[in-house]
């Protein structure tokens, strides 16, 4: 039975369980008219049976399906001739892939390759047996669950409380998915990064000045020694982020001030949604714009005044990234400015200060913590931004602070290291996870501090 049909059958079973449970409860009460003798509403008895019918069986199915491929692989491998069982893990993987393809009918085994044919046949056999076993086991579990719970039902049975407990458990599980995701990120990145640091020392990675991740594939290959000094990536990221901040902080802050203090209601009601469009444009679109419109424009402008500008200059990527971040800075600054109590503003204006003086000398200092928290969040956003730099910044790891030259960033390198087919165990791909770890730790730190500052600041005036 296919997993989807199996799931449908299970759902049908539990619907049946619902009606059986409901009817049984009504019968226990002595007929539909006398359902006030029941502890809970009749439907809850039905839900109770349905839950016990469906959930354990569905749990079994999903567990089974996630384990099944490994078990079948192990069984197939154990049935292989000794010569093939002694292969290296990589070659064994390749072989298993062939087996799977032949079994699925996607590829034909050569006539001479009887071992492959045999393995494919046993693969099919095992899959079929596993599916049959699964169908029997899960349907059996559903039936047992249904029957046992049905026998529980009596007029005094507290069905609602049981059903609500089950619901609460589901809600708790759902709310811990977010925590599990974080743990998953940390573990997966950390695990691979540790494997990387076993090959490349941590100090070389953090302080090395030379980044060229081409490792030798064959032992006798020349020129691809592979060096993993990530400092040029860090400085490149920092350079582009700084440029982005030079664009987004003044513009975003002034926009927030203008919209909060100077603009008429009508201007604000037009300008605000327009600026929010900027935040909704996908980053790949910004990347396209940076690479095909902004970079050539900056290059031409540079040439006009006699500057040498690389075609993938840090400036183009940084400026476009800055524009992307304007709405973030402006909305967070807006929040901070609006949180300053009205009385402070009125007091300053009442003493005769102009609006700009009120803003610069009173409101901004009062709002500063909130604004700085917002800027930290914006920096974290800029560091983690990927598509703009992948499309508009370079690949060469130059150690430079010149915004007209091409630099590369952490995110660009993660993408280039992992896109395309390659062996997963090489230092080259593991390096991507080490960079991912750095990225995660850096952005997490900025976010925690930024969010904390923003929250503390908001509470201060409440």
């Amino acid at each position, binding site marked *: 039975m296919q997993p989807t049909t199996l799931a449908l059958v299970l759902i049908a079973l539990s619907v049946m369980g619902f009606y059986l449970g409901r009817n049984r409860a009504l019968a226990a009460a002595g007929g539909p008219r006398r359902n006030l003798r029941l502890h809970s509403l009749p439907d809850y008895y039905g839900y109770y049976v349905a839950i016990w019918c469906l959930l354990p069986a569905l749990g079994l199915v999903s567990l089974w399906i996630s384990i099944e491929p*490994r078990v079948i692989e192990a069984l197939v491998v154990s049935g292989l001739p000794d010569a093939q069982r002694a292969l290296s893990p990589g070659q064994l993987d390749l072989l298993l892939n062939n087996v799977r393809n032949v079994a699925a009918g996607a590829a034909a085994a050569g006539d001479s390759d009887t071992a492959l044919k045999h393995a494919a046949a046993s693969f099919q056999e095992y899959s079929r047996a596993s599916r049959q076993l699964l169908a029997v086991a899960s349907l059996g579990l559903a039936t047992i669950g249904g029957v046992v719970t049905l026998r529980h039902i009596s007029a005094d049975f507290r069905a609602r409380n049981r059903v*609500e407990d089950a619901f*609460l458990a*589901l*809600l*708790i599980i*759902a*709310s*811990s*998915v*977010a*925590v599990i995701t974080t743990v998953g*990120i940390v573990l*997966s*990145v950390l695990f*691979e990064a540790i494997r990387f640091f076993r090959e490349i020392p941590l100090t070389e990675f953090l302080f090395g000045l030379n980044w060229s991740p081409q490792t030798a594939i064959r032992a006798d290959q020349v020129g691809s020694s592979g060096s993993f000094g990530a400092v040029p990536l860090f400085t490149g990221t920092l350079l582009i982020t700084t440029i982005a901040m030079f664009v987004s902080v003044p513009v*975003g802050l002034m*926009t927030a*001030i*203008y919209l909060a203090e100077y*603009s008429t209601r009508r201007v604000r009601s037009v*300008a605000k949604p*327009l*600026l929010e469009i*900027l935040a*909704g444009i*996908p*980053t*790949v*679109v910004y*990347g*396209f*714009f940076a*690479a*095909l419109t902004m970079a050539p424009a900056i290059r031409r402008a540079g040439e006009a005044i006699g500057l040498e500008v690389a075609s993938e200059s840090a400036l183009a990527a940084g400026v476009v990234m800055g*524009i992307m971040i304007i*709405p973030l800075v402006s909305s967070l600054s807006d929040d901070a400015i609006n949180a300053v109590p009205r009385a402070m503003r009125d007091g300053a204006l009442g003493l*005769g200060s*102009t609006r*700009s*003086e009120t803003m610069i000398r009173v409101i901004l200092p009062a709002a500063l913590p909130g604004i700085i928290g917002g800027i930290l969040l914006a920096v*974290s956003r800029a560091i*983690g931004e*990927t*598509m703009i730099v*992948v*499309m508009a910044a370079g690949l060469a790891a130059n150690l430079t602070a010149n915004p007209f030259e091409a630099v590369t960033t952490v*995110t660009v390198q*993660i*993408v280039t290291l992992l*896109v395309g087919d390659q062996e997963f165990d090489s230092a080259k791909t593991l390096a*991507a*996870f080490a960079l*991912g770890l750095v*990225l995660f730790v850096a*952005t*997490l730190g900025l*976010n*925690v501090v930024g*969010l904390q500052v923003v929250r503390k600041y908001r509470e201060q005036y409440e």
Partner: protein
Amino acid sequence: MKARAAELSTRGTRKAVEAGLGRRHRKETLFHMFGLLATAVGIVFLGIFFFSLISKGASAFTQTFIELEIEFSEEVLAPGGEPDLQYADYDALVRDALWREFPAVTDRRERRELTRLVSAAAGYRLRDAIAENPDLLGARQRVSVPASADIDMLAKGNIDRNQAAAQRPLSDRQLHWIDSLAERGRLQTKFNAALFTNGDSREPELAGIQGALLGSFYMLIVTIALSFPLGVAAAIYLEEFAPKNRWADLIEVNINNLAAVPSIVFGLLGLAVFINWIGIPRSAPLVGGLVLALLTLPVIIIASRAAIKSVPPSIREAALGVGASRMQVVFHHVLPLALPGMLTGAIIGMSRALGETAPLLMIGMVAFIVDPPSGFTDPATALPVQIFLWADSPERAFAERTSAAIIVLLAFLLVMNLAAIIMRKRFARQW
């Protein structure tokens, strides 16, 4: 005496203030102007952005066709007497038709240049035409076939014919031929249906976004099916049931931070967990959907919590007062009232997921895939990834198609966001 001194000093202060007033007002105006300028920067950029996008991309929705007098000769289509319409040499028909148009061209190299005026896919057109109308066999009819990408670019004015011959993709002879075809009224501009009905291709005039659209569609289905129920359930628990303890605080901080984790890190998670550990095939919409579901989960949780918070406590109290359990209060009263807000959040989350690119690069959805996917585990790309792939192609014609694909993507996002805004307006309640 005292009063007089005070009067003098006020007068002094007044004078000092008045003396500085002009300078202060000038500063005020300057500050005002800076604010205006800053606001204008964002909006002007938006204008430039859309202008450059539309001016580049709008032309991709039309395509240049060349009308050729095709002779569906039996010699070519049925060489052994029996017509083999599936695998016949249709390219030969196109070639013959072109050579008939220009009988003066006899040199082999020139003839090859001549055939390059039409797209490599011209033959398929003929196959479709004859499949539709088998009577064509042996007949002669005018059929319009797609022109090659370079001709298309020339017709749209994207290739400068005054450039030196070595620098432009078309030779002088080709320009001459195309002009003479245009004079005979054989050049046509039609709606570019291929853009929406074809998968990816190496030939720009054949490349379309259907595969990418389908890939995005399958992915979003997985995403919404997972992240909406999970997000709503998590929000209900956190708002209505969670005790105020450290665990709840941890989840709270965790969700806020997760919303700000760079999307590429989610891609690393997907690669390490879903592909290498669980073993779901690479490039499958299923993996993409799972990763995007985790990515949009915080957005949906935050929006759903806000929606639940906005339901006034009096409703809860009234329900509790007539004897409902807490679970009944939530599912019978709070949830129906909060649902529009939650759905708005879900739509916004989906529009973010639709535009997300970086995590999809990590899980191998960047492959060159011609066939549109037909399921959740078929290899596929997504619309933003297709944009990324085309943006990398050097041909001028691909730049135009990239812009067109971006316009389509933005149109989808616009529709989604409009739906969210309308929903918010329609169901907004003042308590």
